[in-house]
């Protein structure tokens, strides 16, 4: 079975094309997120933002990329050289791998061949995402340790303990969602939402918890303690330059994009087009698939804009406040949310037990 797949060139080619497309979309969106962030910051602070390179400053991300790319690559003499290179590589690799299980759309037909717009529909989709997101912690930790810099090390340890703390609440907030969907496959979750309505209607508290945890996992303001400039100079990537620094910054924007996609997929119907019955429509499946992709991207962009709005509105937490919020508030809230959801679903299904 597996051997025959290796020789199925059409299958391999299809998947390879899809992988390249998905990764490129992630990179392009991340690139333009940097532009959008500066534009949003400009709008909120009543100034124009980047407007020199190209029309509306649209070429700014390319200029930044070329600059980062051609800078001198410095590896400090006191650092651990192999780990120093491995750190940003791992951070970027983890960011790139998340997109593999996201259903980007239903399917399109090219030359009579049905192509599902998902790299792989794993049964364990949600767990896979958690596994890969957890790998991102290694990038931060290894990079900060290898730098042999006091600020980097402190920032890395802070970042690692922040990420793992919020991973707990994130995992718990999703369990209530799984009670409703009954499947870990992201595609299954989207199909379920097309039939029963979006999960945000049933899980408002769960979504709120997931949103807060997503902010913390992405190290975004108000949780950007690993990069608190006034306390730690520049954070865990202080010793980095050139594309290695670029990878750290880029991985952060890709993570923001991926968590936006994930929130849209888990709670806002994914590629489901609102007020439109996909199953009963007579549209060409290719057009329908592309429309679904458009719907997902629209929701995602709205979430990314929300991330940016929050960044320029809320000041940073103190570290003890951050830990209090994660452990003492989000964790019990997620557990209570889980129990309430379970009771409601069971009452609807079986009635009261007494």
């Amino acid at each position: 079975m597996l051997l025959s797949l290796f020789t199925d060139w059409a299958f391999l080619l299809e998947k390879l094309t899809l992988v390249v497309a998905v990764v490129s979309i992630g990179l392009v969106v991340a690139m333009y997120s940097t532009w959008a962030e500066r534009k949003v910051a400009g709008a909120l602070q009543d100034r124009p933002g980047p407007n020199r390179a190209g029309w509306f400053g649209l070429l700014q991300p390319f200029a930044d990329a070329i600059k980062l790319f051609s800078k001198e690559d410095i590896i400090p003499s006191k650092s651990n050289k192999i780990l120093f290179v491995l750190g940003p590589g791992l951070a970027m690799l983890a960011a790139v791998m998340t997109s593999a299980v996201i259903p980007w759309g239903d399917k399109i037909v090219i030359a009579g061949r049905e192509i599902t717009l998902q790299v792989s529909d794993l049964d364990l989709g949600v767990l896979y995402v958690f596994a890969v997101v957890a790998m991102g912690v290694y990038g931060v930790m290894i990079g900060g340790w290898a730098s042999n810099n006091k600020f980097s090390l402190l920032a890395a340890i802070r970042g690692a303990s922040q990420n793992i703390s919020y991973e707990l609440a994130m995992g718990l907030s999703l369990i209530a969602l799984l009670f409703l969907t009954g499947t870990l496959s992201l595609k299954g979750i989207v199909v379920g939402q097309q039939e029963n309505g979006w999960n945000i209607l049933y899980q408002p508290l769960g979504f709120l918890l997931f949103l807060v945890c997503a902010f913390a996992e992405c190290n975004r303001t108000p949780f950007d303690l690993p990069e608190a400039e006034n306390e730690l100079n520049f954070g865990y990537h202080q010793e980095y330059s050139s594309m290695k620094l670029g990878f750290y910054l880029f991985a952060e924007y890709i993570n923001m994009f991926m968590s936006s996609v994930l929130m849209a997929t888990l709670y806002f119907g994914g590629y489901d087009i609102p007020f439109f019955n996909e199953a009963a429509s007579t549209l060409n499946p290719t057009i329908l698939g592309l429309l679904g992709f458009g719907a997902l991207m629209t929701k995602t962009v709205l979430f990314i804009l929300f991330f940016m709005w929050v960044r320029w509105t809320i000041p940073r937490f103190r570290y003890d406040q951050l830990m209090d919020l994660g452990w003492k508030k989000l964790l019990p809230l997620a557990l209570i949310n889980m129990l309430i959801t379970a009771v409601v679903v069971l009452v609807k299904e079986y009635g009261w037990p007494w």
Partner: protein
Amino acid sequence: MYLLDALSTPAQYLPIAIQFAFGVLFVAGMIAISHFLGPKRNTSDKLDTFESGIEQIGNARQPMAIKYFLVAILFVLFDVEVIFFYPYALNFKSLGWEGFAAVCMFVTFFFAGFFYIYKKGALKWED
């Protein structure tokens, strides 16, 4: 309702392996290219560790506050407990009230452990 019609097979992981290979090539390629592209004018001062303008004092890898270590240990404990909920969540409807009673017991243990570390001050960050 979407059914798990396809059982988990190694074939499902083949596209992920493709993506992994692509990711590794991309990351390694970019780091290698940018390494050879940029200028190389190394001086011993430039390669020194940055410490706000003064010379580095001692090694950076000194013992850190035990709090961080404690958080990591607690994470391992609690994350394992969270993972136990996942198989239950998938079979939740078929297990019914009986399964729920069992999980309530588990949640009580979870809360007991949580209450214990809370009272012990493991989550206390402000001095």
